[in-house]
């Protein structure tokens, strides 16, 4: 949007059909050189289909495309396969979502780059090598001459993504299509990758089409945004304008659902919790003391937890924050006694957990339940939802069969599911519905503490907002205490009362969420917070 030159990429009236299924409905937008345009929408909104039609990757046997996609004035939709390949290789670069799957695991990085170059131009081996080293340096990989000799698995996720970006810009394309380029990466890595894309845009003048579900990321990084819902454009304009005055209902709703834009959404619920909590006695519902856990022995050992301590006051929400590998999951698994700690103690209501044997542990566990990250694997596909929700009641012999049936319906109602869902198998439900069912199953025994292990990270932003709403209201109705594990700092800021930041198995910082987030004292916390695309401006 900075320069008035003709558009690099112009999509006009694009329709895509899969059989009778109308997936993309009349989408139009433009990307000019040196600018970033974001396509925003939840899964199934057609954003990846649009990207695939721009790249000419739609299978002509299963899909039908109408409309026009012009790249530098040339109609892409009418190109032959050979011309498309040339365009894809040299003019349009693609950056995939999951870098782990996009590289050939059995070939060295250098060889994979060389393959791209050899297909497109005649040059000597040493010329190609110099070019590759230059590109690797350009994408910020240290010691390029070492990197070309490595295999993909020897690189971290962030480095793999840099390699892929390098491959995409290798032949100096005019346009980069990036499909959720950072959703598989940690926040701090996310920031560096997005910074790199910004630099490339500014230095090389490429146009970037950024596909994302993350509204706050899109707002911070792009000049224009296209908001998609159900294959149709809901809103199209400069990002500042779309975000400050969203005109469509859909964009406004999306806006409300993004945690980073609604940090104080649960302020009232939080202060109510605080008041109730101060009326309580001082014994925390959950206390963890000096947990140490080491995996492996000898030289290959890995210290997952290195003296972790924190406490969670009754009826409040405590967040456990950290990047992947920081020890969050190990901490949770140790608290639930799915792993045994090397040393340290876990207290539930002042009662030490490791003192229990198998039988009495079963009684203690009634009070300590878990909601899993991925609702697609946490429910047994063989049984109906009703049976899965009633299962804990049956196992602990709660009530008669009739009472359990009534309680199941009650629970379904409490998590906002219809009664007929009781007969459904998990595979027929959406992710949000499954997670609701998983929550119902976890609260069936009326536990005091619910451990939420990234309960929304596998879900769309709107579904996430609904699940968080549900969790907040369940908490106030049932007086639950939450241990909330997350890597998403916006959600933590919005949802939790207190927070513990973990880094490499050790506690970095701990305290009230608003204080820690306002004045992070430790460098690591500061780094974490600075990598979140915060938005200070809120809509009127």
């Amino acid at each position: 949007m900075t320069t008035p030159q003709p558009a690099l990429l112009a999509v006009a009236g694009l329709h895509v059909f899969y059989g009778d299924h109308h997936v993309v409905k009349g989408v139009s937008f433009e990307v000019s050189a040196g600018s970033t345009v974001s396509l925003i929408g939840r899964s199934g909104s057609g954003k990846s289909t649009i990207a695939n039609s721009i790249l000419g990757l739609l299978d002509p046997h299963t899909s039908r495309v109408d409309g026009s996609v012009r790249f530098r004035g040339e109609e892409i939709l009418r190109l032959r396969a050979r011309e498309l390949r040339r365009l894809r290789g040299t003019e349009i670069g693609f950056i995939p979502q999951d870098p782990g799957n996009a590289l050939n695991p059995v070939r060295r990085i250098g060889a994979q780059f060389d393959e791209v170059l050899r297909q497109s131009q005649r040059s000597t081996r040493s010329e190609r090598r110099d070019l590759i080293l230059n590109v690797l340096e350009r994408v910020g990989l240290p010691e390029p001459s070492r990197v070309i000799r490595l295999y993909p698995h020897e690189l971290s996720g962030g480095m793999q993504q840099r390699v892929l970006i390098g491959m995409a810009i290798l032949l100096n394309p005019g346009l980069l299509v990036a499909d959720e380029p950072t959703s598989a990466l940690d926040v701090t890595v996310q920031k560096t990758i997005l910074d790199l894309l910004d630099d490339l845009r500014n230095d090389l003048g490429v146009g970037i089409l950024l596909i994302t579900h993350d509204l706050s990321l899109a707002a911070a990084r792009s000049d224009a945004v296209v908001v998609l819902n159900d294959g149709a454009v809901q809103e199209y304009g400069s990002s500042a304008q779309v975000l400050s005055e969203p005109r469509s209902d859909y964009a406004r709703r999306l806006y409300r659902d993004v945690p980073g834009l609604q940090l104080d959404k649960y302020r009232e619920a939080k202060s109510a919790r605080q008041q109730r909590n101060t009326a309580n006695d001082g014994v925390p519902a959950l206390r963890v003391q000096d947990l140490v856990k080491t995996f492996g022995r000898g030289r290959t050992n890995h210290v997952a937890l290195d003296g972790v301590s924190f406490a969670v006051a009754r009826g409040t929400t405590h967040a456990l924050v950290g990047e992947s590998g920081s020890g969050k999951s190990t901490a949770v698994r140790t608290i639930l006694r799915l792993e045994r700690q090397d040393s340290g103690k876990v207290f539930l209501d002042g009662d030490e957990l490791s003192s229990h044997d198998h039988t009495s542990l079963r009684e203690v566990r009634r009070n300590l339940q878990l909601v899993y990250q991925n609702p697609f694997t946490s429910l047994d596909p063989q049984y109906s939802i009703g049976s899965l929700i009633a299962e804990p009641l049956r196992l602990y012999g709660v009530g008669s069969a009739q009472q359990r049936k009534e309680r199941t319906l009650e629970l379904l109602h409490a998590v906002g599911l219809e009664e007929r869902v009781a007969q459904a198998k998990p595979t027929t439900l959406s992710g949000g519905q499954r997670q609701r069912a998983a929550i119902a199953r976890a609260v069936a025994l009326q536990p005091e503490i619910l451990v939420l292990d990234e309960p929304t990270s596998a879900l769309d932003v709107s579904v996430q907002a609904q699940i968080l709403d549900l969790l907040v209201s369940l908490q106030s109705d049932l007086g639950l205490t939450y241990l909330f594990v997350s890597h998403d700092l916006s959600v933590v800021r919005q949802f939790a009362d207190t927070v513990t930041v973990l880094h490499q198995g050790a506690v970095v910082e701990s305290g009230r969420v608003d204080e820690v987030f306002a004045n992070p004292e430790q460098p690591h916390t500061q780094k974490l917070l600075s990598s979140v695309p915060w938005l200070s401006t809120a809509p009127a």
Partner: protein
Amino acid sequence: MTTEALGHSKAQPSAPATPNRSVRVVAGNATLWLSTAVLLTIALWSVAPSWFTDDDPYTGITTDRLQPPSAEHLLGTDQIGRDLLTRIVYGASASVTSAIIAVAIALLAGSLIGLLSGFIGSWVDPALSRVVDVLLAIPGFLLAIITVSALGFATVNVAIATGVSAVAVFARLMRSEVMRVKHLSFIESSYLIGGTKPYVLIRHILPNAYRSVFHLAVLQFGLAIIVISGLAFLGYGDPPPSSEWGLLVADGKEYMKRYPWLVFAPAGVIAVTVLSLYRISRIFGERA
């Protein structure tokens, strides 16, 4: 990512039926129906052979010996004048029963070994796995011959031997399925809501693991028929006048040069049965 992937698969309906493809679909269904019909017929042969033929499988009419196929004797007659089709129909019972016994032994013993091995782990797994390795190291047919030699020559023993030779395959598959399933989060979740180990094993692991084992069982049924016929051919089964299919082939081979139907008819029945079983097992394979 998961939701994304699901969204895509939902968005992709089945491809438009090109002529080539629809031909293949119809042909695929035709072979499926044909296979089902074949297996039903053979099941009926083994339950009620007298519905299909009025002749006696054991006493021949000497004047009618070595007749070529005709309207009266559809598959001809053998060297002492017995109707070959009647022999085959009456032989079905022996072949099918033996195959059922064999598969049942292999399925039960193999599944149990695999289940314990995969579920308990610790020292049980390596111990049982080594036993399975030893069984796998001996060629199946040889193992069957050794077993039947030890038990004595009879069709029932042939069935047991065939079953024993297939135990290892089931154990291997069951073990790997159990190991795959037991690390899924819904299994862990079942412990957290108060499930005991035996409970989780029976209610959650077994139902999610049995499917591909069941697929293997159908496949092994076909294999068992081949192995049992082979053992009968070599004379390890019941002696004549039993009409087990492998024995019919063995009897016929003496006259093969001039009266080829005596070999090809029973051999063809074995082949068609096994092929039908493989076709049926493919449905389970697709669903698993």
